[in-house]
């Protein structure tokens, strides 16, 4: 079916065909519309409040999905509902199109990698990995083959006879993953597995985990509160707050096109301006009045003239200019530098605008460019490239 | 609880069954029989009365209670005075010495307390070692009559029960956050004030736990007053033993036991009140 489509598109224009192929490869060699997990109207409630509120989610086969949110947003609870350690108060969960309500964890074909790894301290690496297979009474020959396979994938062949206390944190984590993966679950659930590792190790493990997921071909559902981690590892991100799903999208979508202020503020930094639409120019182009200046902008949302909006500008999109460099400043905002923070690869500036608003600007350090030598209190001009901002309908905070 | 988890079902059943038959039921029997009439022909009859409790109200029994409380109180105090510094020093130690010294404390704890009390006799009797040493050093001019006195009983109680005071206090002090002590010193408190206003209140749970573990047994270990205090030394433990096994007055023995249990409940209640809000309890965790 897809092949026919490809050929016909290719006839229209060669590049269309290429785009379609590229799009398919990127999403993995899997059926794009097959959902391995579906949550419908899921609630988890306590007498006085809801931990999870009306969760509807589809998890696609073979993807690396991240549940991202601050502590207490319900992401771990959601994981536990999927794995079967908790039951939802309302709603249904489907794994492979089967309703799993009431089904105990080991019957669900999903396995969990715990934050503390939870390796059995008195068993060797081999025995830990073999545990699930032994419970299922897998034949010895097959068991040994599968264990050898998965151990090779996590590169722990030399450590089979060691006990967990003799392994490093990163190695323990790989054993935990091997132990879960060797049982060939449909989905692997990982509950903040990298949070107890130090910075460098975490960076390394992020890459390793991503590679491992591709090699294993299993769907991963990954829980974290670290948005950088989510952005760098995921195929899709589910941004959660206070028990609700705020947005589901690819890292790029979530970062560049946040659907509301919560998402915008949690994933990356954002400067938020209050503005009012003054003109609609069609084709998603609008003129918005910010701090008295009329600026052109783009917006996907359906807006009307006079509507109040929030305008989001990421710090790295803000451009800061010394007065000497600018002749015509009518489109720019005047401000003074309040704080200069040198961060190695970037310089962060906190600029106080005329209406007392404080905004953050991140400039990439370029030694040839002495624009970045700002002093505290120095007067500057601030603007950004039109189109790089995000317009959101006004929300009450 | 259905059979989806046979292990849980069988374990819990066995545990509850045992606890019910051998812990709850016997105690109920004590309470019930304390309200029964005593008859020399039958051990007890089934008619409810508070005779036993009324009898407790007379001077003889009252004197026994009073003496038991006083001796137990003195023993507890002595254990506290001797044991607190000891526990403090050991708790603050580090290194291999600490384990060794701890071991030396635990060994007497595991030995039969009867044997240790007997060992005391040789020490404190009139022709015993203690008198010999004191006479030899010239501190005494004639031997002390220690054996078969209240003092001997107190010495015996302290000797046997000191580890029970030391261990809870030591556990408590080990968990003491030394940074609090440092903070107090940093803010200008001298050693005495720090001790009085920071260390004592913080270690109070351990002190109370240790005191409970010493006070109650002091009143009820009947063989210590028996062999060190002689026939005229009757504390609550001896009273109960006597009523049950010699006088065959089980309701009376039960009544005294009930009163003793009430004392226990009061002490536990006090302990719980004093440690309310505390995450680390030495007892009743």
């Amino acid at each position, binding site marked *: 079916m897809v092949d026919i489509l490809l050929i016909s598109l290719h006839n229209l224009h060669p590049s269309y065909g290429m785009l379609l192929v590229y799009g398919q490869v990127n999403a993995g060699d899997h059926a794009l519309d097959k959902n391995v997990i579906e949550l419908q109207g899921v609630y988890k409630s306590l007498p006085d409040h809801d931990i999870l509120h009306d969760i509807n989610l589809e998890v696609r086969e073979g993807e690396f999905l991240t549940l991202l949110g601050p502590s207490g947003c319900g992401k771990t609870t959601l994981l536990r509902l999927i794995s079967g350690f908790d039951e939802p108060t309302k709603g249904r969960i489907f794994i492979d199109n089967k309703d799993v309500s009431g089904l105990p964890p*080991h019957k669900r074909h999903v*396995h*969990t990698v715990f*934050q*503390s790894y*939870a390796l059995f301290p008195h068993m060797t690496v081999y025995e830990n990995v073999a545990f*699930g297979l032994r*419970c*299922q009474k897998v034949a010895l020959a097959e068991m040994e083959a599968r264990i050898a396979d998965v151990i090779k994938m996590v590169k722990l062949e030399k450590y089979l006879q060691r006990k967990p206390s003799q392994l490093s944190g990163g190695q323990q984590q790989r054993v935990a993953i091997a*132990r879960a993966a060797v049982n060939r679950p449909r989905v692997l659930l990982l509950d903040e597995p990298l949070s107890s590792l130090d910075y460098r190790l975490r960076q390394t493990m992020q890459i390793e985990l991503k590679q491992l997921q591709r090699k294993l071909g299993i769907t991963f559902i990954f829980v974290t509160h670290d948005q950088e981690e989510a952005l760098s590892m995921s195929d899709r991100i589910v941004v959660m707050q206070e028990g609700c799903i705020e947005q589901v999208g690819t890292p790029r979508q979530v970062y560049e096109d946040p659907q509301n202020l919560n998402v915008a503020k949690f994933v990356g930094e954002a400067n938020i301006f209050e503005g009012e639409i003054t003109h609609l120019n069609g084709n998603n182009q609008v003129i918005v009045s910010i701090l008295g200046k009329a600026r052109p902008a783009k917006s996907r949302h359906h807006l009307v003239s006079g509507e109040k909006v929030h305008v989001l500008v990421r710090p790295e999109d803000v451009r800061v200019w010394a007065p000497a460099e600018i002749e015509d400043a009518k489109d720019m905002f005047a401000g003074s530098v309040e704080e200069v923070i040198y961060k190695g690869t970037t310089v962060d500036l906190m600029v106080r605008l005329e209406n007392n608003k404080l905004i953050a600007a991140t400039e990439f350090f370029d030694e040839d460019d002495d624009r970045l030598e700002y002093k505290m209190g120095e007067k500057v001009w601030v603007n950004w490239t039109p189109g790089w901002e995000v317009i959101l309908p006004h929300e009450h905070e | 609880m259905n059979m989806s988890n*046979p292990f*849980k079902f069988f*374990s819990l059943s*066995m*545990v*509850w069954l045992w606890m019910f038959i*051998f812990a*709850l*039921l016997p*105690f109920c*029997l*004590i309470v019930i029989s304390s309200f029964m009439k005593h008859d020399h022909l039958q051990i007890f009859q089934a008619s409810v009365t508070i005779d036993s409790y009324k009898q407790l109200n007379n001077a003889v029994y009252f004197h026994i209670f009073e003496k038991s409380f006083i001796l137990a109180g003195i023993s507890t105090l002595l254990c506290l005075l*001797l044991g607190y*510094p*000891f526990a403090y*020093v*050991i708790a603050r130690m580090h290194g291999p*010495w600490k384990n060794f*010294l701890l*071991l*030396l*404390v635990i*060994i*007497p704890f595991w*030995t*039969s*307390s*009867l044997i240790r009390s*007997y*060992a005391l*006799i*040789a*020490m404190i*009797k009139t*022709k015993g*070692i203690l008198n010999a040493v004191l006479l030899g050093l010239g501190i005494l001019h004639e031997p002390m009559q220690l054996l078969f006195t209240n003092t001997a009983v107190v010495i015996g109680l302290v000797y046997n029960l*000191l580890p029970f005071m030391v261990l809870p206090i030591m556990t408590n002090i080990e968990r003491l956050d030394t940074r609090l002590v440092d903070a107090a010193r940093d803010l200008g408190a001298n050693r005495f004030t720090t001790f009085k206003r920071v260390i004592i209140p913080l270690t109070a749970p351990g002190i109370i736990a240790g005191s409970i573990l010493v006070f*109650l047994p002091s009143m*009820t*270990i*009947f*063989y210590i007053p*028996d*062999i060190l205090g002689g026939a005229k030394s009757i504390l609550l*433990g001896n009273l109960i*033993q006597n009523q*049950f096994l010699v006088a065959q007055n089980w309701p009376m023995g039960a009544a005294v036991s009930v009163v*003793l249990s009430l004392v*226990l409940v009061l002490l536990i209640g006090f302990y719980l009140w004093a440690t309310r809000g505390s995450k680390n309890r030495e*007892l009743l965790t």
Partner: protein
Amino acid sequence: MMRAAKLPTISYLSFIYLFFYTPIFILIAYSFNNTQYSLLWHGFTWQWYSELFNDADLWIAAWHSLVLGLAAATLATTIGMLAAVCLYRYRFLGRHFLNGLVFILILSPEIVTGASLLLLFAMVKLPLGFISLLLSHVSFCIPFVIVTAYSRLISFDKNIFEAAKDLGASDALIFWRIILPLLWPALFAGWLLSFTLSLDDVIISYFVTGPEFEILPLRIFSMVRSGVKPEINALCSVLFAVTFCLVLLSQLVLRKKA
């Protein structure tokens, strides 16, 4: 490492330790003293030990105590271990009550426990002897096993049980393959503790003992009441040495596996 301890501290510690051990050392010394009543040293002798050795009644009582101790310790450890595991792993009706009950049993005066058990046996008309002793000893040992086992259990990462369930293990399997291997040092300590508690128990045994089954502590008690005798010195020294070895053994085993 230990800094140079101050003199008052050292002398204070020494005083306390001397206080603990002097009576015992004197007892041991006198067990070798070649005299019956005198305080003075009359020469070294094994006489009292050989009298001890030849005292048949004492051997019988010792044997009884040993059998009782082994049986009571094993039963108490089994039941106590299951109780500790249930308290640790499961939420069930009356959980907090059971928890409190365990501590109250530990704090309860032995004399009340002894009297109450006597009432129980009288009520069911059980003749006093080995069975009544065994049941009583197991009952007072169980709380100590529970506390020992429980305090070890709470040091585990709770997640390993969820991981095991996740991988398909039944509760029985979790018990045999995961809990037992990890718990056994605490169980050994609990067993040893129960064994010594049973061997040394005087008060509870006094209430529930029968004429047919004499045990050692009660025999010692009646011997002691009739006065100081060198034979008792020898007996106590032997028992002290046995306990000492048991404590050392337990510490060595536990230290290795800690």
